[in-house]
């Protein structure tokens, strides 16, 4: 396995694959164009970029792809964009690498206890689906799109309320699976019309593996709150 990917996958990780449904080896004319497409579609919410594209370093590239690897301590991330239109993104779960989240004051989490935040998860799905929607309308997109969000190495981590203004999750929901897969085959229109709704759908399915059920309104409000922090 790619050593950077191996490092990220040694702990909990988020993996996103976005691509058209049909394989065309050279869907995008050249790698320069790939870089421009990714830069133009990059999502920036609250100072967080998806994907992170360092302007100070030239993207790495080989015959059919461009990409970058970023190591900023708790921010470990790599992405690749292929001439076929395929986009791959792998990033560490930030809390596992030392990032300090603001949690509900009622949550009791030990220093070394792995956890997953509700707001953080919503944010991750929202970034990925919004980027997918943007990509679908570029030369990397197709009439039918494949979007997958995988969360791996969950272990038996707890789902927690990562909002200092909310109560804790009293039932202490715990992941019942080690890996989670959210996969959708969507038309370009469906993806472009409602990426935030699709992100809510993904997050809801994700929370279900913790045996945690939230109302649509609550999740929508939480999602909007994260996007406006």
């Amino acid at each position, binding site marked *: *396995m*790619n050593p950077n*990917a191996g490092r990220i*996958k040694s702990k909990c990780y988020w*993996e996103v*694959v976005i*691509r058209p*449904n*049909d*394989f065309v*080896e050279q869907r995008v004319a050249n790698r320069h164009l790939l870089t*421009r497409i990714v*830069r*133009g579609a*990059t*999502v*920036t*919410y609250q*100072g967080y970029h998806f994907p992170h594209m360092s*302007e*100070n370093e030239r993207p790495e590239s080989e015959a*059919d*792809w461009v990409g970058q690897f970023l190591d900023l301590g708790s921010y470990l991330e790599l992405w690749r964009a*292929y001439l*076929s239109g*395929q986009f*791959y993104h*792998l990033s560490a779960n930030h809390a596992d690498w030392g990032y300090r989240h603001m949690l509900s004051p009622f949550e009791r989490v030990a220093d070394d206890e792995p956890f997953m935040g509700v707001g953080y998860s919503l944010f991750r799905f929202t970034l990925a689906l919004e980027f997918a*929607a*943007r990509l679908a*309308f*570029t030369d990397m997109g197709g009439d*039918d*799109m*494949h979007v997958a969000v995988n969360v791996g190495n969950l272990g038996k981590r707890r789902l927690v309320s990562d909002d200092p203004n909310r109560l804790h999750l009293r039932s202490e929901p715990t992941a019942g699976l080690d890996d989670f897969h959210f996969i959708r*085959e*969507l*038309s*370009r*229109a*469906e993806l*472009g*019309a*409602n990426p935030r709704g699709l992100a809510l759908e993904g997050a809801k399915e994700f929370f279900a593996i913790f045996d945690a059920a939230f109302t649509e309104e609550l999740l929508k409000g939480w999602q909007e709150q994260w996007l406006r922090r």
Partner: protein
Amino acid sequence: MANHRDGGIVIIGVDESGGSPRPVGLTPEELETWGYDDIAAILAACSDPTLSFEHEIRTYNGMPYVVLRVHEFAEVPILAKKDMLGERNKQIIRKGGCYVRSLGKPETSEIPSQDEMRDLLDLAIQKGIRKFVEQAVGAGLIVYRPSPARPASDAEFLRQLGEFLR
């Protein structure tokens, strides 16, 4: 910022004169001049279409800062509506100018190259298409057709990702 994908954040109260940014905050007198209405009036007078933003006062180390969250333009890129002069009557904004964030440098300038111009045009076009799709789907003019559950060319895509998959 408004001509930049997803807009941006401007923090008033940071001293950049020494090269690297230094948080110094605003005095009560300075803070008074950075009210929402004052800023909105100036921006409305010099930008077309008017740009939209949110205004917030935040405190850091006991000092107040004004945080402006500038939204990405809604339909068409924002242009300067009139000339504006800065210190020593130096022109800082040119009427009709289109200002963007430079690639690779934390600064705003008139579109410096064809790359930034293409990026801005692409953004405006994609926003227009997305808006049309959203409205067309909402109005029932576009009906989703089921996508193939498992694309025939799945294997080729997976082969590309071989080095990342366990």
